[in-house]
């Protein structure tokens, strides 16, 4: 049974002093997660938000449609000159993200601290 995707936003500051917007996702990410994934991201003001962290640590499952949504988000971010890092992925989905070329658009990290330090 697929669980609903939840997303909420948080503002942090990186160790280098940059403002960072964190999008924390929960549940499963699938075709029904369009509003939670793309909608939440598209609500961010592109003029001011330049660094985005994606938190997948509470995501249980991402199917092919969910991965397509993440890629769409990353392509939009790339077109808006935003830097995007992701963390909290299981080894399985880290491998899947690498296969589908997500690493060309977003750095993948194990923890939030590592991702923040890289910004």
């Amino acid at each position, binding site marked *: 049974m697929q669980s609903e995707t939840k997303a909420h936003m948080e503002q942090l500051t990186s160790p280098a002093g940059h403002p960072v917007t964190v999008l924390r996702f929960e549940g499963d990410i699938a075709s029904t997660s369009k509003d939670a994934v793309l909608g939440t991201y598209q609500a961010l003001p592109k003029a001011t938000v330049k660094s985005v962290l994606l938190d997948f640590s509470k995501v249980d499952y991402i*199917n092919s449609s969910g991965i*397509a949504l993440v*890629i769409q988000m990353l392509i939009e971010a790339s077109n808006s000159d935003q830097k995007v890092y992701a963390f909290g992925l299981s080894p399985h989905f880290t491998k899947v993200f690498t296969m589908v*070329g997500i690493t060309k658009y977003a750095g993948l990290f194990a923890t939030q601290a590592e991702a923040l330090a890289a910004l």
Partner: protein
Amino acid sequence: MARRFLLLFSLLSGLGCFGWAQARVVPNKPGGGPGDTTSVTIGQSSARLYGPWKFTVGDSPIDPVTHEQLWAEPGFDDSGWETVDLTSAEGAIDPTAGLSGYVPGWTAKGHRGYWGYAWYRIRVRVNVKPGEKLAVGGPSDVDDAYQLMANGVLLGSFGDFSRSRPSIYNTRPMIFQLPQQDVEGPASVVLAFRFWMEPTTAMQQPDAGGMHNAPLLGDAGTVAGDFQSQWVELSRAYATTPIFAFLYLLLALTAFSLVFFDRSDRVYLWIGGVYLLAATSSIVLTLTVWTQALSGEAGNVITDILLTPLTSAGWAMIWWVWFRLRRPAWLPTAAFALAALLALSNALGENLWFTLVPGPVSAAFHVISMAARLATLALVLWIFIEGIRTQGVEGWLALPALLLHGFSRFQNELSILHLQIYWFPFGVQFGIGQLAGLLLLLVLVLLLGRRLYFSVLKQRRMALDVKQAQEVQQVILPRARVSLPGFEIESEYRPAQEVGGDFFQIVPHPSNGSLLIVAGDVAGKGLKAGMLVALLVGAARTAAETDPEPMFVLGALNRRLLGRGDAQATCLALSIAADGGVTLANAGHMPPYLNGQPVAMEGALPLGMLPGPDFSVMHFKLAESDRLVLVSDGIAEATDAEGRLFGFERTEQLLKAGLSAADLAAAAQRFGQADDISVIAVTKIAATLPGAREPVPEWSI
């Protein structure tokens, strides 16, 4: 000196002036012969106390000496009070409950709109033999609650007078025993009734206020007999309420169960929900009429503030969903906003909490309540007009029932205007609301049957479409096991649903002995994914005819998917030359396994994401007996009941162990299939000797 009514009441004579009597026949000489006379003792009599009663509105002051209610005391001078007669007109019945012996209450006798306390007093002379017991049968039709006192002593009450605002209950028969010492021998008894009526009652019923039939005084056994017959009359009057509760509950359950036949149609949920509310309303009415489990105020709050507004909005939603309307999008919100307004205006307009708002404000809210009901009716009518415009026959069929149902929402106002809204065939109450409810129920059953029939028909057609799509997909996929010069190929395809989103094609070159394999996975599952598969398979084969080079094929497929909304697919294309040389191009698909080891290659975006993506490419050579296995993510992402993944490591281990394509697919499926599964295994074998007969693949282009 007050004018007193003296009723000579004799338990022995029982003659002439009594309204109701029971007789007991006692033969004085058992077995007596001809000429003997039989003496008859007439006893256990009772009399209706029609009056004249003394009456006043307001409440009694407390006697400073006795600290009791002054107006209950036998010596109180009530000569200045009004005189009331409770004798009913021939055949008069209560317009709401149908109870016999009805007389209009105080609002029809000079106290229009009055609610609150009022008193009735009567003086009765009785002559009781020692040992005989007297009782008073309280009036069985009252508004709303009362206390009964005899010679200043409280005998009992109907309703709860322990709070500052008495609790009321639906009218019902009551019995009060008279203290024997007060009435033995010739005695004078002053009966005083202290009444309380809610403001709601004055607004909901015509001629409300106080006693609507006369109390009974007499022998305790006789009064008990009358009590029972009054209960029979009351039970008969409200006999339909539990029947309607049962009918509504049955329809609610039926509607909910229809959801299992057609989950896509939300109308069944709305119908089930509204009829559950209707059943609850009938159950509340049954409880308030026949028991004291619910007080009148609680019944009013549950019905008028909660159930009625929700039901109104629910009906609007039923027809909105029924006619599949989408515009204006604000209409459902408007329906529930009107329901909220109706709840608020009912609460304040019916003056359920009369201590909160003054009378004029309450009257204004009653007008708002009517406006809210009219607006809801107008909203539903508008939905119907749209429904008739788009659906025709269904709308016309339900319209009369709907109009009657809407009309019945104003039954209190109609009742106040003395319009007949209740009929009493065989003493059973049957109102305009019940008639509308029954008519609507019949129409809805008819319409539901019709809708379900067409829904099942549509589902069968759709199932046939899916079945045909499945057959087409089986045709366009290669056979499970084929041999080509230099190659042994086995494949396995197990869609998660009837139609899958995985695809693969094996296209041998007609002349140079090379082989093109295209394998992919469309995002999503089911018929939509299956249709994209058909598109991609056609595109792949067309591209291969032009140029079987993997990068060219992927580029062609990417162009086919671009701009088609959320149509994306991972895809891998590889060509294997006759000498074993492999060119592999990948668009986000799982890399193949060479002899059980995953081929290390760079990741790349799936098809359909960007106009000119960088597909990853690599070259290597297959030696004789090398085995190249292409798998979809349905293998690694098979998930067991505990949510564990089949995973890449397990896939690798099984492939190293030399598992066939079918066995690997079966292992993942047993583990817990979550997505489409496809496995293609290509083994390089020794080329066929020149002159030997080559197998002709049936699926070749």
